[in-house]
Protein backbone atom coordinates (compact mmCIF):
# COMPACT_ATOMS: atom_id res chain seq x y z
CA UNK A 1 0.00 0.00 0.00
CA UNK A 2 2.69 2.48 1.00
CA UNK A 3 4.70 1.35 -1.99
CA UNK A 4 1.84 2.18 -4.33
CA UNK A 5 1.40 5.57 -2.75
CA UNK A 6 5.10 6.31 -3.10
CA UNK A 7 5.06 5.39 -6.77
CA UNK A 8 1.99 7.55 -7.36
CA UNK A 9 3.61 10.51 -5.65
CA UNK A 10 6.87 10.11 -7.57
CA UNK A 11 5.00 9.83 -10.85
CA UNK A 12 2.81 12.77 -9.94
CA UNK A 13 5.81 14.97 -9.17
CA UNK A 14 7.54 13.91 -12.37
CA UNK A 15 4.45 14.63 -14.46
CA UNK A 16 4.10 18.01 -12.83
CA UNK A 17 7.73 18.88 -13.50
CA UNK A 18 7.44 17.79 -17.10
CA UNK A 19 4.27 19.81 -17.63
CA UNK A 20 5.92 22.91 -16.20
CA UNK A 21 8.95 22.35 -18.40
CA UNK A 22 6.80 21.92 -21.48
CA UNK A 23 4.89 25.09 -20.70
CA UNK A 24 8.09 27.10 -20.28
CA UNK A 25 9.47 25.60 -23.43
CA UNK A 26 6.38 26.37 -25.48
CA UNK A 27 6.39 29.94 -24.23
CA UNK A 28 10.06 30.57 -25.00
CA UNK A 29 9.70 29.04 -28.43
CA UNK A 30 6.69 31.26 -29.02
CA UNK A 31 8.79 34.27 -28.12
CA UNK A 32 11.58 33.46 -30.49
CA UNK A 33 10.66 31.54 -33.56
CA UNK A 34 6.95 31.27 -34.02
CA UNK A 35 7.15 34.06 -36.57
CA UNK A 36 5.16 32.41 -39.26
CA UNK A 37 7.37 30.96 -41.93
CA UNK A 38 5.31 32.57 -44.64
CA UNK A 39 5.93 31.84 -48.27
CA UNK A 40 7.31 35.33 -48.71
CA UNK A 41 9.68 34.91 -45.82
CA UNK A 42 11.18 31.68 -47.00
CA UNK A 43 11.60 33.22 -50.42
CA UNK A 44 13.42 36.15 -48.89
CA UNK A 45 15.58 33.81 -46.85
CA UNK A 46 16.55 31.87 -49.95
CA UNK A 47 17.33 35.12 -51.75
CA UNK A 48 19.52 36.32 -48.87
CA UNK A 49 21.39 33.03 -48.88
CA UNK A 50 21.88 33.22 -52.63
CA UNK A 51 23.27 36.74 -52.43
CA UNK A 52 25.44 35.82 -49.49
CA UNK A 53 26.99 33.09 -51.58
CA UNK A 54 27.45 35.33 -54.61
CA UNK A 55 29.02 37.98 -52.43
CA UNK A 56 31.39 35.53 -50.79
CA UNK A 57 32.35 34.12 -54.16
CA UNK A 58 33.17 37.47 -55.66
CA UNK A 59 35.20 38.42 -52.57
CA UNK A 60 37.18 35.25 -53.07
CA UNK A 61 37.68 36.16 -56.73
CA UNK A 62 38.88 39.62 -55.78
CA UNK A 63 41.29 38.09 -53.28
CA UNK A 64 42.70 35.86 -56.02
CA UNK A 65 43.03 38.83 -58.37
CA UNK A 66 44.82 40.84 -55.69
CA UNK A 67 47.23 38.01 -55.04
CA UNK A 68 47.91 37.77 -58.76
CA UNK A 69 48.46 41.53 -59.02
CA UNK A 70 50.84 41.42 -56.07
CA UNK A 71 52.77 38.69 -57.80
CA UNK A 72 53.01 40.86 -60.91
CA UNK A 73 54.23 43.76 -58.79
CA UNK A 74 56.83 41.48 -57.21
CA UNK A 75 58.05 40.40 -60.64
CA UNK A 76 58.11 43.95 -61.88
CA UNK A 77 60.15 45.10 -58.91
CA UNK A 78 62.66 42.34 -59.45
CA UNK A 79 63.34 43.74 -62.89
CA UNK A 80 63.27 47.33 -61.78
CA UNK A 81 64.86 48.13 -58.44
CA UNK A 82 63.42 51.66 -58.48
CA UNK A 83 60.07 50.13 -57.64
CA UNK A 84 61.21 48.37 -54.47
CA UNK A 85 60.44 51.34 -52.30
CA UNK A 86 56.97 51.75 -53.79
CA UNK A 87 56.31 48.06 -53.29
CA UNK A 88 57.20 48.07 -49.61
CA UNK A 89 55.01 51.15 -49.10
CA UNK A 90 52.10 49.36 -50.75
CA UNK A 91 52.58 46.32 -48.51
CA UNK A 92 52.83 48.34 -45.33
CA UNK A 93 49.88 50.48 -46.42
CA UNK A 94 47.67 47.47 -46.98
CA UNK A 95 48.48 46.17 -43.50
CA UNK A 96 47.28 49.43 -41.92
CA UNK A 97 44.27 49.75 -44.21
CA UNK A 98 43.29 46.22 -43.21
CA UNK A 99 43.34 44.39 -46.53
CA UNK A 100 45.92 41.78 -45.48
CA UNK A 101 45.99 39.19 -42.69
CA UNK A 102 48.39 40.34 -39.98
CA UNK A 103 49.90 38.93 -36.81
CA UNK A 104 51.98 40.20 -33.92
CA UNK A 105 52.02 40.74 -30.15
CA UNK A 106 49.04 42.35 -28.45
CA UNK A 107 46.02 41.76 -26.25
CA UNK A 108 42.71 39.94 -26.43
CA UNK A 109 39.82 41.51 -24.54
CA UNK A 110 36.70 39.47 -23.94
CA UNK A 111 33.52 41.30 -22.95
CA UNK A 112 30.22 39.73 -22.01
CA UNK A 113 26.95 40.92 -20.55
CA UNK A 114 26.56 41.04 -16.79
CA UNK A 115 25.51 37.88 -14.99
CA UNK A 116 23.53 39.83 -12.42
CA UNK A 117 19.90 38.74 -12.15
CA UNK A 118 17.94 41.29 -14.24
CA UNK A 119 15.07 41.32 -11.75
CA UNK A 120 17.33 42.75 -9.06
CA UNK A 121 18.23 45.98 -10.81
CA UNK A 122 16.32 49.12 -11.64
CA UNK A 123 17.25 49.15 -15.32
CA UNK A 124 18.07 45.74 -16.86
CA UNK A 125 19.53 47.58 -19.86
CA UNK A 126 22.49 48.46 -17.67
CA UNK A 127 23.44 44.79 -17.64
CA UNK A 128 23.94 44.61 -21.40
CA UNK A 129 26.93 45.73 -23.40
CA UNK A 130 26.12 48.47 -25.89
CA UNK A 131 27.71 49.77 -29.07
CA UNK A 132 29.05 52.73 -27.11
CA UNK A 133 30.93 50.40 -24.73
CA UNK A 134 32.62 48.67 -27.66
CA UNK A 135 33.32 52.01 -29.36
CA UNK A 136 34.96 53.36 -26.19
CA UNK A 137 37.14 50.29 -25.72
CA UNK A 138 38.23 50.46 -29.37
CA UNK A 139 39.04 54.16 -29.00
CA UNK A 140 41.17 53.43 -25.91
CA UNK A 141 43.00 50.68 -27.78
CA UNK A 142 43.84 53.12 -30.57
CA UNK A 143 44.92 55.62 -27.93
CA UNK A 144 47.40 53.09 -26.51
CA UNK A 145 48.87 52.43 -29.94
CA UNK A 146 46.91 49.54 -31.45
CA UNK A 147 47.96 48.98 -35.06
CA UNK A 148 45.20 46.53 -36.00
CA UNK A 149 41.93 45.72 -34.25
CA UNK A 150 39.21 43.13 -34.84
CA UNK A 151 35.93 42.42 -33.10
CA UNK A 152 34.78 38.80 -33.35
CA UNK A 153 37.17 38.55 -36.29
CA UNK A 154 35.66 41.52 -38.10
CA UNK A 155 38.66 43.70 -38.94
CA UNK A 156 38.16 47.38 -38.23
CA UNK A 157 39.03 49.53 -41.23
CA UNK A 158 38.84 53.28 -41.66
CA UNK A 159 35.22 53.13 -42.84
CA UNK A 160 34.05 50.66 -40.14
CA UNK A 161 31.29 51.70 -37.79
CA UNK A 162 29.91 50.01 -34.73
CA UNK A 163 26.15 50.08 -34.53
CA UNK A 164 23.66 48.73 -32.05
CA UNK A 165 20.94 46.53 -33.47
CA UNK A 166 19.06 45.20 -30.47
CA UNK A 167 20.73 42.21 -28.83
CA UNK A 168 23.36 42.18 -31.52
CA UNK A 169 25.86 44.71 -32.81
CA UNK A 170 26.55 45.51 -36.44
CA UNK A 171 30.20 45.82 -37.46
CA UNK A 172 31.15 46.18 -41.13
CA UNK A 173 27.52 45.35 -41.87
CA UNK A 174 28.00 41.94 -40.20
CA UNK A 175 25.94 40.97 -37.18
CA UNK A 176 27.93 39.93 -34.12
CA UNK A 177 26.65 39.04 -30.66
CA UNK A 178 28.07 38.83 -27.15
CA UNK A 179 30.55 37.63 -26.00
CA UNK A 180 32.70 40.12 -27.86
CA UNK A 181 36.31 39.19 -28.50
CA UNK A 182 38.36 42.26 -29.30
CA UNK A 183 41.86 41.56 -30.59
CA UNK A 184 44.48 44.27 -30.92
CA UNK A 185 48.06 44.19 -32.15
CA UNK A 186 50.55 46.56 -30.55
CA UNK A 187 52.90 46.70 -27.56
CA UNK A 188 51.13 44.46 -25.00
CA UNK A 189 52.43 46.52 -22.04
CA UNK A 190 50.84 49.67 -23.48
CA UNK A 191 47.63 48.03 -24.61
CA UNK A 192 47.07 46.38 -21.21
CA UNK A 193 47.03 49.87 -19.73
CA UNK A 194 43.31 49.68 -20.51
CA UNK A 195 42.97 47.74 -17.26
CA UNK A 196 44.10 50.69 -15.14
CA UNK A 197 41.90 51.48 -12.12
CA UNK A 198 39.17 53.93 -13.09
CA UNK A 199 39.59 53.10 -16.77
CA UNK A 200 36.72 52.07 -18.99
CA UNK A 201 37.23 48.33 -18.53
CA UNK A 202 37.48 48.79 -14.77
CA UNK A 203 34.20 50.74 -14.81
CA UNK A 204 32.47 48.06 -16.87
CA UNK A 205 33.64 45.44 -14.41
CA UNK A 206 33.11 47.27 -11.12
CA UNK A 207 30.14 49.54 -11.77
CA UNK A 208 28.15 47.35 -14.12
CA UNK A 209 29.43 43.87 -13.22
CA UNK A 210 30.14 43.07 -16.87
CA UNK A 211 32.37 40.09 -17.55
CA UNK A 212 35.68 41.60 -18.63
CA UNK A 213 38.90 39.76 -19.39
CA UNK A 214 42.17 41.07 -20.81
CA UNK A 215 44.95 38.71 -21.88
CA UNK A 216 48.36 39.58 -23.27
CA UNK A 217 49.68 37.43 -26.06
CA UNK A 218 52.80 37.29 -28.17
CA UNK A 219 51.07 35.97 -31.20
CA UNK A 220 47.75 37.40 -32.25
CA UNK A 221 46.37 36.88 -35.71
CA UNK A 222 43.88 39.31 -37.15
CA UNK A 223 42.15 38.47 -40.43
CA UNK A 224 41.83 40.88 -43.30
CA UNK A 225 38.70 42.95 -43.91
CA UNK A 226 36.20 40.75 -45.68
CA UNK A 227 34.71 43.49 -47.85
CA UNK A 228 35.87 46.04 -50.36
CA UNK A 229 37.05 49.57 -49.60
CA UNK A 230 36.67 52.05 -52.42
CA UNK A 231 36.23 55.81 -52.34
CA UNK A 232 33.58 57.15 -54.67
CA UNK A 233 33.49 60.74 -53.50
CA UNK A 234 36.86 61.51 -51.94
CA UNK A 235 39.47 62.24 -54.59
CA UNK A 236 43.12 63.07 -54.06
CA UNK A 237 44.11 66.67 -54.84
CA UNK A 238 47.66 67.79 -55.30
Amino acid at each position, binding site marked *: MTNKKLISIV*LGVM*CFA*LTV*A*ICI*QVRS*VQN*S*TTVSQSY*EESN*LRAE*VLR*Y*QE*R*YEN*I*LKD*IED*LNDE*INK*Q*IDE*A*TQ*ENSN*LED*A*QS*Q*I*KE*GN*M*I*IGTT*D*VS*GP*GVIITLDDSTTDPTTVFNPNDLLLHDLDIL*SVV*NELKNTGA*EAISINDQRL*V*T*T*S*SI*QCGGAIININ*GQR*VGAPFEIKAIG*LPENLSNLERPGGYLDDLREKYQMQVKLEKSNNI*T*IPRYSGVIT*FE*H*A*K*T*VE
Partner: protein
Amino acid sequence: MKKKGKITVTITIGIAVLALSTVMFMQFKLVNETDITSIENMREEELRTELANLKEQYDVANEQYEQQKQTLEQYQQQEKSDEETSKLVQDELDNVNLLLGKTNVEGEGVTITLRDKESEDGEFLIITSDILNILVNYLKLAGAEAISINDERIINTSDIATINETLILVNQQRIIGPYVVKAIGDKTYLESTLVARGGYVDTLQRQGYDVSIESSDKVEIPQYNKDITVKYMQQN
Protein backbone atom coordinates in the same frame (compact mmCIF):
# COMPACT_ATOMS: atom_id res chain seq x y z
CA MET B 1 1.00 -12.19 -11.92
CA LYS B 2 -0.80 -9.08 -10.88
CA LYS B 3 2.33 -7.81 -9.20
CA LYS B 4 4.44 -8.52 -12.27
CA GLY B 5 2.07 -6.49 -14.44
CA LYS B 6 2.36 -3.60 -12.07
CA ILE B 7 6.12 -3.68 -12.22
CA THR B 8 6.05 -3.71 -16.03
CA VAL B 9 3.76 -0.69 -16.05
CA THR B 10 5.98 1.15 -13.63
CA ILE B 11 9.10 0.38 -15.62
CA THR B 12 7.43 1.42 -18.88
CA ILE B 13 6.28 4.70 -17.41
CA GLY B 14 9.70 5.23 -15.89
CA ILE B 15 11.40 4.76 -19.25
CA ALA B 16 8.90 7.03 -20.97
CA VAL B 17 9.49 9.76 -18.43
CA LEU B 18 13.24 9.39 -18.74
CA ALA B 19 13.06 9.62 -22.52
CA LEU B 20 10.85 12.68 -22.34
CA SER B 21 13.15 14.38 -19.88
CA THR B 22 16.15 13.74 -22.10
CA VAL B 23 14.33 15.23 -25.06
CA MET B 24 13.35 18.24 -23.01
CA PHE B 25 16.93 18.88 -21.92
CA MET B 26 18.20 18.56 -25.45
CA GLN B 27 15.54 21.00 -26.50
CA PHE B 28 16.50 23.45 -23.78
CA LYS B 29 20.10 23.32 -24.86
CA LEU B 30 19.09 23.90 -28.45
CA VAL B 31 17.07 26.98 -27.60
CA ASN B 32 19.94 28.23 -25.48
CA GLU B 33 22.44 27.80 -28.23
CA THR B 34 20.31 29.28 -30.99
CA ASP B 35 22.50 31.83 -32.74
CA ILE B 36 20.60 35.09 -32.87
CA THR B 37 22.95 36.39 -35.53
CA SER B 38 22.10 33.74 -38.10
CA ILE B 39 19.69 34.40 -40.90
CA GLU B 40 17.53 31.42 -40.02
CA ASN B 41 16.18 33.47 -37.15
CA MET B 42 15.62 36.75 -38.91
CA ARG B 43 12.19 38.16 -39.40
CA GLU B 44 10.82 39.51 -42.65
CA GLU B 45 11.88 43.09 -42.02
CA GLU B 46 15.42 42.12 -41.04
CA LEU B 47 15.64 39.87 -44.06
CA ARG B 48 14.71 42.74 -46.34
CA THR B 49 17.34 45.00 -44.80
CA GLU B 50 19.92 42.24 -44.98
CA LEU B 51 19.10 41.61 -48.62
CA ALA B 52 19.35 45.30 -49.50
CA ASN B 53 22.72 45.50 -47.71
CA LEU B 54 24.02 42.42 -49.43
CA LYS B 55 22.95 43.66 -52.85
CA GLU B 56 24.72 46.94 -52.25
CA GLN B 57 27.87 45.21 -50.99
CA TYR B 58 27.77 42.89 -53.95
CA ASP B 59 27.55 45.77 -56.43
CA VAL B 60 30.53 47.49 -54.84
CA ALA B 61 32.47 44.23 -54.87
CA ASN B 62 31.56 43.59 -58.47
CA GLU B 63 32.82 47.01 -59.49
CA GLN B 64 36.05 46.38 -57.64
CA TYR B 65 36.35 43.01 -59.32
CA GLU B 66 36.09 44.51 -62.81
CA GLN B 67 38.60 47.18 -61.89
CA GLN B 68 41.13 44.73 -60.51
CA LYS B 69 40.68 42.50 -63.51
CA GLN B 70 41.60 45.40 -65.77
CA THR B 71 44.63 46.22 -63.66
CA LEU B 72 45.80 42.64 -63.87
CA GLU B 73 45.33 42.57 -67.62
CA GLN B 74 47.43 45.69 -67.93
CA TYR B 75 50.19 44.00 -65.96
CA GLN B 76 49.98 40.88 -68.05
CA GLN B 77 50.27 42.63 -71.38
CA GLN B 78 53.40 41.49 -73.06
CA GLU B 79 56.33 43.68 -73.88
CA LYS B 80 55.47 46.46 -71.53
CA SER B 81 58.17 48.99 -70.95
CA ASP B 82 59.68 49.74 -67.56
CA GLU B 83 57.89 53.04 -67.67
CA GLU B 84 54.50 51.42 -68.02
CA THR B 85 55.17 49.05 -65.16
CA SER B 86 56.32 51.92 -62.99
CA LYS B 87 53.10 53.72 -63.74
CA LEU B 88 50.99 50.73 -62.74
CA VAL B 89 52.85 50.33 -59.45
CA GLN B 90 52.61 54.07 -58.85
CA ASP B 91 48.82 53.96 -59.45
CA GLU B 92 48.55 51.18 -56.91
CA LEU B 93 50.57 53.19 -54.40
CA ASP B 94 48.44 56.28 -55.04
CA ASN B 95 45.30 54.30 -54.24
CA VAL B 96 46.85 52.88 -51.06
CA ASN B 97 47.82 56.39 -49.94
CA LEU B 98 44.29 57.64 -50.67
CA LEU B 99 42.73 54.90 -48.53
CA LEU B 100 45.32 55.43 -45.78
CA GLY B 101 44.62 59.15 -45.50
CA LYS B 102 48.06 60.25 -46.68
CA THR B 103 46.71 62.57 -49.37
CA ASN B 104 44.70 65.78 -49.34
CA VAL B 105 41.23 64.96 -50.60
CA GLU B 106 38.14 66.80 -51.74
CA GLY B 107 34.62 65.87 -52.73
CA GLU B 108 31.00 66.44 -51.77
CA GLY B 109 30.09 66.10 -48.13
CA VAL B 110 29.09 67.86 -44.93
CA THR B 111 30.62 70.21 -42.40
CA ILE B 112 29.37 70.04 -38.81
CA THR B 113 30.25 72.76 -36.32
CA LEU B 114 29.94 72.16 -32.58
CA ARG B 115 30.39 74.82 -29.90
CA ASP B 116 30.50 74.80 -26.11
CA LYS B 117 27.55 76.73 -24.77
CA GLU B 118 25.97 77.99 -21.58
CA SER B 119 22.22 77.55 -21.62
CA GLU B 120 19.78 80.21 -20.36
CA ASP B 121 19.46 78.56 -16.96
CA GLY B 122 23.23 78.59 -16.47
CA GLU B 123 23.89 74.99 -17.44
CA PHE B 124 27.08 74.31 -19.39
CA LEU B 125 26.71 72.17 -22.49
CA ILE B 126 30.28 71.19 -23.22
CA ILE B 127 31.31 69.26 -26.32
CA THR B 128 33.13 66.17 -25.01
CA SER B 129 35.47 63.70 -26.67
CA ASP B 130 32.66 61.12 -26.40
CA ILE B 131 30.36 63.31 -28.47
CA LEU B 132 33.02 63.68 -31.17
CA ASN B 133 33.76 59.95 -31.09
CA ILE B 134 30.08 59.04 -31.48
CA LEU B 135 29.64 61.62 -34.24
CA VAL B 136 32.59 60.15 -36.17
CA ASN B 137 31.09 56.67 -35.77
CA TYR B 138 27.74 57.90 -37.16
CA LEU B 139 29.49 59.60 -40.07
CA LYS B 140 31.22 56.32 -40.93
CA LEU B 141 27.92 54.50 -40.63
CA ALA B 142 26.47 56.96 -43.16
CA GLY B 143 29.30 56.13 -45.56
CA ALA B 144 31.84 58.90 -44.94
CA GLU B 145 35.07 58.18 -46.82
CA ALA B 146 37.27 60.83 -45.24
CA ILE B 147 36.77 62.68 -41.94
CA SER B 148 38.66 65.41 -40.12
CA ILE B 149 38.18 67.28 -36.85
CA ASN B 150 39.70 70.77 -36.87
CA ASP B 151 41.80 69.60 -39.81
CA GLU B 152 43.18 66.59 -37.93
CA ARG B 153 42.54 63.74 -40.38
CA ILE B 154 40.84 60.68 -38.88
CA ILE B 155 42.64 57.56 -40.13
CA ASN B 156 42.20 53.91 -39.18
CA THR B 157 44.44 54.23 -36.11
CA SER B 158 43.22 57.66 -34.97
CA ASP B 159 41.89 58.13 -31.45
CA ILE B 160 39.92 60.90 -29.79
CA ALA B 161 41.07 61.24 -26.21
CA THR B 162 40.30 63.47 -23.29
CA ILE B 163 42.34 64.63 -20.32
CA ASN B 164 40.21 65.32 -17.24
CA GLU B 165 37.18 65.88 -19.45
CA THR B 166 38.54 69.30 -20.32
CA LEU B 167 41.18 68.89 -23.01
CA ILE B 168 40.41 67.04 -26.22
CA LEU B 169 43.15 65.38 -28.24
CA VAL B 170 42.77 64.02 -31.75
CA ASN B 171 45.78 62.06 -33.06
CA GLN B 172 47.48 63.14 -29.77
CA GLN B 173 47.15 66.76 -30.88
CA ARG B 174 45.21 69.14 -28.69
CA ILE B 175 42.24 70.76 -30.39
CA ILE B 176 39.99 73.54 -29.07
CA GLY B 177 36.47 74.66 -29.88
CA PRO B 178 34.64 75.44 -32.03
CA TYR B 179 34.99 71.91 -33.35
CA VAL B 180 34.66 71.64 -37.11
CA VAL B 181 34.02 68.10 -38.27
CA LYS B 182 34.27 67.59 -42.02
CA ALA B 183 33.22 64.47 -43.88
CA ILE B 184 33.33 63.52 -47.55
CA GLY B 185 30.66 61.17 -48.87
CA ASP B 186 27.16 61.24 -50.34
CA LYS B 187 26.17 64.68 -49.01
CA THR B 188 22.42 64.07 -49.16
CA TYR B 189 22.66 60.78 -47.32
CA LEU B 190 25.14 62.09 -44.75
CA GLU B 191 23.00 65.13 -43.97
CA SER B 192 19.64 63.40 -43.94
CA THR B 193 20.72 60.56 -41.62
CA LEU B 194 22.17 63.01 -39.12
CA VAL B 195 19.34 65.57 -39.07
CA ALA B 196 16.44 63.10 -39.33
CA ARG B 197 14.43 62.68 -36.14
CA GLY B 198 16.64 60.56 -33.88
CA GLY B 199 19.73 61.25 -36.00
CA TYR B 200 22.74 62.28 -33.94
CA VAL B 201 22.77 65.99 -34.85
CA ASP B 202 19.03 66.12 -34.18
CA THR B 203 19.52 64.37 -30.84
CA LEU B 204 22.25 66.79 -29.75
CA GLN B 205 20.18 69.80 -30.79
CA ARG B 206 17.20 68.54 -28.80
CA GLN B 207 19.43 68.24 -25.76
CA GLY B 208 20.29 71.91 -26.25
CA TYR B 209 23.77 71.60 -27.74
CA ASP B 210 25.04 74.19 -30.20
CA VAL B 211 25.44 72.08 -33.33
CA SER B 212 24.99 73.05 -36.96
CA ILE B 213 25.40 71.12 -40.17
CA GLU B 214 25.94 72.24 -43.73
CA SER B 215 26.25 70.18 -46.87
CA SER B 216 28.37 71.25 -49.78
CA ASP B 217 29.62 70.09 -53.18
CA LYS B 218 33.21 70.67 -52.23
CA VAL B 219 34.62 69.74 -48.85
CA GLU B 220 38.42 69.79 -48.51
CA ILE B 221 40.12 67.51 -46.02
CA PRO B 222 43.87 67.60 -45.39
CA GLN B 223 46.13 64.59 -45.23
CA TYR B 224 47.27 62.94 -42.00
CA ASN B 225 50.31 64.99 -41.17
CA LYS B 226 52.48 62.46 -39.36
CA ASP B 227 54.27 59.34 -40.50
CA ILE B 228 52.17 56.22 -40.42
CA THR B 229 54.46 53.46 -39.25
CA VAL B 230 54.10 49.80 -38.42
CA LYS B 231 56.17 48.47 -35.52
CA TYR B 232 54.48 45.40 -34.16
CA MET B 233 52.39 43.74 -36.85
CA GLN B 234 53.61 41.80 -39.79
CA GLN B 235 51.93 40.40 -42.83
CA ASN B 236 50.95 36.75 -42.62
